């Protein structure tokens, strides 16, 4: 019969709306309003998973976010498989398809359960101790096997087709948790007139009120009061109620992250909706009303299917109309377990007995249990259970004053309900950097102040009961006082070496494991946690932390507060990567910067490389060419005729103002005051420590205006540095800095035919050798576009750089290309650019420099304005280490065999077979095959390098040392006669 354990009436489910779903392929029905867990229980299914380490059969323990056992995978179609969801939080919808995890071939028959038989052999720390030797087996044998056996659930395959949204929100009051305390706080905050956000992780707001059957509030039944209160809040336009929304992280200044699950509960969601939404809320005040989590009791074999938290069982009955079984044994250390026994008995469930760990139990609820004719055995404990896939028997004995157990008798039952009292959910309070205080009478930590504008109310503050949650503004009747609480392992008469009383269900940590960790010398709870993995599963120990603490405290003769609590971290419950990433994925993960000429390069078949966020054309292969062939051809063409190159990514800064020259004079090593308008200079930028951090050509456009170029990667950094000095060191200087990187397209035309290519396109500038010398800049028009034309060379050939407004970049490039083709010129990419400059010994900042290189090391001492009194970094250039003669200097290296290409980054030493520990003389910074030199060439930084020219050094490599000769770093046209074409 379907839904055999569903009651005839009651609960908040919609009995008129049956829903069909599948679990491990088996078809069942539930009702609208069910969770997967309640629907499974309604069908009599307790066995829902296998434990992580021992593969023990496990059932549903809880009814909320704390569930450690009932982890399932939910399949919503291709790319939409979500593992490790708590069945207690998965809302049922028509056609839901879920599967159990960590079992093979099936949940009922799992071969890996053999691990359970071997359990005495695999205690805590087993892996650390066992797989120590031989060491070589670790990478090849042990780790792959352990990895294959470990892990929980399977990762989805394929990319996630869903969309995830992110929102920012601000409010006066953020209330986390819509139970009675949260709703009362939201009503108060709304009455004060501010903006209120009330979020709750469940589908329906209400918290414990959703399962409250006996109490009345302000004269109404709890369910009616809840409906009234939610109506009040919903009618207020300044209140936002967010169901299915978990506050998972609490950050500085009341910044709280919420994850809203928008569509997972729908059978056919609107495709326009995002799957989940991340709310980033900044609240003036945060009210935490996160409730409390019921604590399991730690007794031998407390993990069998059918063993549940007592209030969870009551919740399944009251909220979902589900009886968890036929005959229950109740194991209580708190009055609430008596209350659960009463309600379940009233619904027709047989209560075999209430076993109360306490010596006396005479509160109102235990009294009513006795009046109902249910046997209550106080001062008693459960010493073990039987039943493979479902509990069918428990052993009950009495505890003597000395802790010994006697008179053990079997009690048959198909359900065992336990309660060790309540643990306030202080996770978010702790994340707010709040302090905690231990309260002995409830055996729990409660909030004790936080530096943020945040307060905890209700059960999460240790204020239990409806009246305490609602406060004095609301009158509660019929909610009897309850008390109790126990943390730690209960006494039993079993062999301590064999009895397994589980503390952390999800990671299979037993009381014995914790004791072992202590005996092995672990004292700090943080170390015990990591060694045993207690509290380190996906549930972060929601049901286990306090029991573990109490066990460690008892075993080490300390009090719980002395042991301390491990840190609570975000997220409270797992959050999908999709929610955290939001729109930042694929194309939107990181901005892509392209130049105005990008489309042309794409059409020309360029191979691109990433340079920061820029896409740059690396080379332009012709059909049949590999990279080397293409680069070699491009290099030959530039030296023989010409090449055109997209240099638009170069950083550009417009420096203008009365003191622009003075400013640059102070920033760069070069002299700028006497640079005439229409002239350029190669500028070198140091930091205050004297090290080269950027370079580029700077042109003086007018007395008070400079066109500064920087390296592609350094543009933002250089502008920030300039702003820093201008604003904070020399605020008196009148200069303005504007980034113009994206405003100019820059086209380099290099090669002996460069002038012939450009001349027909240039208007208003005399480009003759006499009128337009090397390192000059002119304004005019190129191919009709307003242009700044530089006469500069980064190849050693006659060269120009055409700067036109970005909007004209593509057309200008195409016009130049038309001319270039007539001269057999080529378009060349960044690799050819690198080779051509290396042949001339021109440096690249970041390749020849590494933040420890000064201008003289690079042979660039000539650029420094000798008459200048000061510039950034100048003082450092006279420090003793900087003027030492054995500094690494830029040299060229040629391999002796004339064929071998060195590896960039390879070390340079004096002897071919250096003993270990030999210090390197330097390293290779650039290495290329050179068409111009007809052999491989390399640049290197070598100690005292300039004085070593002609020496043979060695580059040790795995295949043997490579002999190299130290040469001048200029491999091509050392006299510079080709600059004028």
């Amino acid at each position: 019969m379907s839904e055999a354990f569903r009651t005839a009436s009651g609960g908040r489910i919609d009995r008129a709306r049956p829903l069909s779903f599948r679990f491990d392929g088996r078809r069942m029905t539930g009702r609208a309003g069910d969770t997967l867990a309640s629907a499974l229980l309604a069908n009599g299914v307790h066995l829902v998973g296998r434990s992580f380490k021992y593969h023990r059969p496990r059932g549903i323990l809880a009814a909320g976010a704390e569930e450690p056992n009932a982890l399932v995978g939910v399949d919503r179609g291709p790319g939409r498989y979500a593992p490790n969801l708590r069945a207690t939080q998965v809302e049922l919808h028509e056609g839901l398809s879920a599967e159990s995890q960590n079992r093979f071939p099936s949940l009922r028959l799992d071969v890996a359960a053999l691990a359970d038989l071997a359990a005495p052999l695999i205690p805590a720390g087993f892996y650390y101790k066992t797989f120590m030797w031989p060491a070589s087996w670790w990478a090849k044998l042990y780790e792959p096997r352990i990895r294959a056996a470990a892990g929980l659930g399977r990762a989805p395959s394929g990319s996630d087709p869903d969309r995830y949204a992110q929102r920012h929100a601000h409010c006066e009051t953020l209330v986390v948790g819509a139970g009675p305390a949260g709703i009362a706080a939201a009503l108060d905050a709304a009455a004060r007139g501010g903006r209120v956000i009330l979020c709750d992780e469940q589908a329906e707001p209400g918290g414990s009120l959703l399962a409250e059957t006996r109490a009345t509030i302000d004269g109404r039944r709890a369910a009616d009061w809840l409906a009234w209160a939610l109506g009040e809040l919903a009618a207020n336009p300044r209140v936002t109620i967010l169901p299915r929304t978990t506050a998972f992280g609490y950050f500085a200044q009341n910044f709280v992250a919420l994850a809203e699950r928008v569509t997972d509960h729908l059978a056919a969601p609107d495709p326009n909706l995002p799957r989940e939404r991340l709310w980033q809320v900044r609240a003036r005040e945060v009210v935490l009303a996160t409730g409390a989590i019921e604590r399991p009791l730690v007794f031998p074999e407390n993990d069998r299917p059918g063993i549940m938290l007592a209030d969870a069982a009551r919740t399944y009955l009251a909220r979902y109309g589900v009886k968890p079984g036929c005959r229950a044994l109740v194991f209580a250390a708190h009055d609430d377990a008596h209350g659960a026994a009463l309600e379940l008995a009233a619904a027709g469930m047989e209560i075999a007995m209430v076993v109360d760990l306490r010596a006396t139990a005479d509160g109102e609820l235990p009294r009513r249990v006795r009046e109902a004719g249910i046997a209550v055995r106080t001062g008693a404990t459960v010493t073990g259970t039987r039943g493979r896939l479902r509990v069918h028997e428990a052993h009950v004995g009495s505890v003597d004053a000395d802790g010994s157990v006697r008179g053990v008798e079997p009690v048959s039952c198909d359900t065992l309900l336990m309660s060790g009292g309540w643990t306030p959910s202080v996770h978010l309070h702790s994340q707010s950097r709040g302090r905690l205080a231990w309260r002995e009478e409830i055996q729990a930590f409660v909030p004790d102040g936080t530096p943020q504008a945040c307060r905890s109310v209700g059960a999460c503050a240790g204020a239990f009961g409806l009246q305490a949650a609602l406060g004095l503004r609301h009158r509660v009747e019929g909610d009897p006082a309850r008390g109790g609480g126990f943390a730690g392992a209960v006494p039993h008469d079993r062999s301590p070496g064999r009895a397994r009383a589980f503390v952390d269900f999800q990671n299979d940590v037993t009381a014995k494991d914790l004791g072992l960790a202590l005996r092995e010398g672990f004292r700090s709870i943080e170390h015990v946690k990591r060694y045993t993995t207690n509290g380190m599963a996906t549930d972060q120990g929601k049901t286990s932390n306090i029991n573990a603490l109490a066990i460690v405290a008892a075993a080490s003769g300390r009090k719980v507060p002395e042991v301390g609590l491990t840190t609570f971290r975000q997220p409270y419950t797992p959050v999908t990567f999709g929610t955290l990433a939001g729109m930042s994925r694929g194309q939107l993960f990181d901005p892509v910067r392209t130049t105005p000429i990008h489309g042309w390069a794409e059409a020309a078949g360029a191979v691109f490389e990433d340079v920061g966020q820029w896409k740059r054309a690396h080379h332009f292969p012709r059909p049949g060419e590999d990279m080397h062939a293409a680069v070699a051809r491009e290099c030959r063409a530039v030296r023989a005729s010409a090449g055109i190159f997209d240099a638009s990514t170069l950083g550009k800064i417009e420096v203008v103002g009365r003191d622009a020259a003075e400013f640059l004079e102070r920033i760069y090593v070069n002299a700028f005051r006497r640079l005439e308008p229409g002239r350029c200079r190669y500028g070198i930028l140091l930091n205050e420590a004297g090290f080269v951090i950027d370079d580029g050509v700077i042109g003086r456009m007018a007395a008070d205006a400079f066109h500064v170029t920087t390296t592609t990667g350094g543009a933002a950094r250089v502008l920030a540095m300039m702003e820093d000095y201008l604003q904070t060191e020399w605020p008196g200087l009148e200069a303005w800095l504007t980034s113009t990187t994206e405003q100019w397209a820059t086209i380099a035309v290099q090669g002996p035919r460069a002038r012939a290519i450009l001349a027909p396109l240039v208007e208003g500038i005399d480009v003759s050798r006499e009128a337009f010398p090397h390192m000059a800049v002119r304004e005019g028009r190129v191919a009709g576009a307003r242009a700044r034309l530089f006469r500069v060379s980064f190849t050693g050939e006659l060269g120009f750089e055409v700067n036109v407004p970005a909007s004209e970049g593509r057309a200008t490039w195409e016009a130049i290309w038309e001319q270039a083709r007539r001269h057999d010129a080529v378009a060349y990419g960044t690799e050819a650019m690198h080779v051509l400059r290396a042949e001339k010994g021109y440096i690249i900042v970041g390749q020849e420099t590494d933040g420890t290189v000064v201008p003289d090391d690079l042979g660039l001492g000539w650029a420094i304005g000798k008459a200048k009194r000061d510039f950034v970094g100048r003082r450092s250039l006279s420090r003793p280490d900087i003027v030492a003669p054995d500094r690494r200097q830029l040299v060229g290296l040629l391999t002796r065999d004339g064929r071998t290409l060195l590896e960039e980054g390879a070390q340079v030493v004096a002897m071919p077979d250096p003993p270990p520990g030999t210090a390197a003389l330097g390293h290779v910074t650039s290495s290329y095959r050179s068409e111009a030199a007809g052999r491989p060439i390399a640049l290197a930084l070598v100690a005292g390098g300039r004085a070593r020219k002609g020496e043979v050094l060695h580059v040790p490599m795995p295949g043997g040392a490579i002999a190299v000769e130290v040469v001048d770093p200029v491999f091509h046209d050392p006299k510079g006669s080709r600059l004028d074409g």
Partner: protein
Amino acid sequence: MLLIRCPHCGERPEVEFRHGGEAHVARPEDPSSLDDAAWAEFLYMRANPKGWHFERWRHEHGCGRFFNAVRHTVSDRIVLTYRSGEKRPDLAAIPGTERP
């Protein structure tokens, strides 16, 4: 994410800002007059307090201005921000610095 009050723009989220190191470390007027030890002191020696710290921030993705902030390095609480160039305030006179 911190909220930081830019003295020019008002409160903005931390992602708009960039930290700029210790404040009130002025570059010497005439570096060449400093001996190596004094220059090294300026280059490399910075306060690293556990407690209140005067530091520079730049509203990089906003007005672009540098300014100074008084921040507690343990709690991250910022009690004061002020324009660069203004005199370093007396810590004891800043309200809110009596607690972290």
